[in-house]
């Protein structure tokens, strides 16, 4: 199939960045707006693309290697490039702190700053399935899960409903968050918004886990079968990290720090 060949080329050819730069030149001819969405090699700035903490194929078969490579090297890289452009010349701000006033800061910070945080958060909460299966919610987190959703299964069911195509609609994320009353909630946010951004929900809420349901996150393997992707994703969720996130959020009432 056509897309498999396109994937082999960058993996096989050294100078992958050179290849992308050539096509970027072509795109620049077609219009300035086109350049914004092309993944460029890292531009010097306040934010960096963090490396994945595992190989591209580490989350197979639940999330496929080609998706992980494109998602990280192209999509996330583009958000990093663009948030650096959007914040050029401004005082350096930690990426977590950048989320709070992202709506007021304008679409560049909102979309690309949100995109950078969301993806950095996403990579770190996942781990290969054989490791993930040995992890589980801590007793304090489990107590909160049971209080809010009845059980872990109850939480997964509500999460599935909130992440379904009709609920988050086109592109967005589905989160489990700690709210202002220290209770757990499940919330969906559109595009690259997240609940740390003032104005996105009725109050700022602190994610402890989140799932990317943009089509690019699952399309190569699942096509339109988003519910299957959502159900399978629990196989690669690292509850040790989620427990850490929960402890951090409960103690600090701040967004979980991320790399990059």
């Amino acid at each position, binding site marked *: 199939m056509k897309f498999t060949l396109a994937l082999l080329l960058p993996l096989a050819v050294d100078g992958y960045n050179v290849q992308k730069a050539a096509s970027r030149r072509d795109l620049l001819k077609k219009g300035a707006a086109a350049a914004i969405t092309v993944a460029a090699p890292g531009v010097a700035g306040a934010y960096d693309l963090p490396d994945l903490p595992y190989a591209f194929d580490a989350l197979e078969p639940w999330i496929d290697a080609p998706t992980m490579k494109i998602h990280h090297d192209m999509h996330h890289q583009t958000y990093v490039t663009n948030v650096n452009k959007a914040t050029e010349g401004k005082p350096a701000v930690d990426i977590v702190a950048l989320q709070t006033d992202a709506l007021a800061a304008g679409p560049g910070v909102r979309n690309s700053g949100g995109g950078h945080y969301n993806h950095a958060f996403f990579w770190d909460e996942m781990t290969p399935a054989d490791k993930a299966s040995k992890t589980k919610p801590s007793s304090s987190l489990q107590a909160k899960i049971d209080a809010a959703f009845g059980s872990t299964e109850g939480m997964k069911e509500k999460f599935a409903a909130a992440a379904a195509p009709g609920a988050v609609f086109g592109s967005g994320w589905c989160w489990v968050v700690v709210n202002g009353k220290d209770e757990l909630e499940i919330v969906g946010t559109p595009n*690259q918004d997240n609940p740390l951004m003032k104005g996105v929900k009725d109050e700022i809420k602190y994610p402890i886990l989140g799932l990317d349901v943009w089509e690019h996150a699952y399309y190569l393997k699942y*096509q339109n079968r988003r519910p299957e992707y959502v159900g399978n994703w629990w196989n690669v969720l690292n509850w040790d990290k989620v427990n850490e996130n929960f402890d951090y959020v409960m103690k600090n009432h701040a967004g979980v720090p991320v790399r990059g």
Partner: protein
Amino acid sequence: MIRSLSRPVARALQKRAMSGASLPALPYAYDALEPTISSTIMEIHHTKHHQTYVTNLNAALEKAEAASKSGDASALIALAPAIKFNGGGHINHTLFWENLCPASESSPPTGALAAAIEADFGSFDAMKSQMSAQTVAVQGSGWGWLGYNPSSGSLEIATCSNQDPLAATTGLVPIVGIDVWEHAYYLDYKNVRPDYVGAIWDVIDWKCAERRFEAAK
């Protein structure tokens, strides 16, 4: 007459009469738009994505009919997002298939539409450039449209998010639509949406656009 049939059959017939939407056939084969859009994308886009909008729209409409009959405003309001999303999805994709054609059959607009494009944008190329830029810039999922404004009598470019339909959302009459949900291009173009939008001009059916323009003005 219905009463004389068995209950399940009568119910099925009644159900058939209530469901309004159906998946339209494409006016061309799945591979007709290659290499611009692959047959793989066309088949999944049509038989999976568009079909799901149709199925879910009919389910929502059935519930809405029942709610309407019993005057249940609360239920109707609760159904509104599903009707907007799935109804919009059905409307948008039906318009989309119609305004695409094999590259060999695609030629620039002529007549009144060509004149209107020149009057409102300066040139055909200028219109395509502006529409490409605005369509590529859609955040997340949505559509880019060339539309006709019946109040001003001029053509405009607009974008809508998710499956919000152009006419109901903006009052513009759809002339040409471009789907920029990732499912419309991802298997072929990955995240390089500008390549997809740049290429799709090769398969736009301007004859269809001319017919829509004639009907609108």
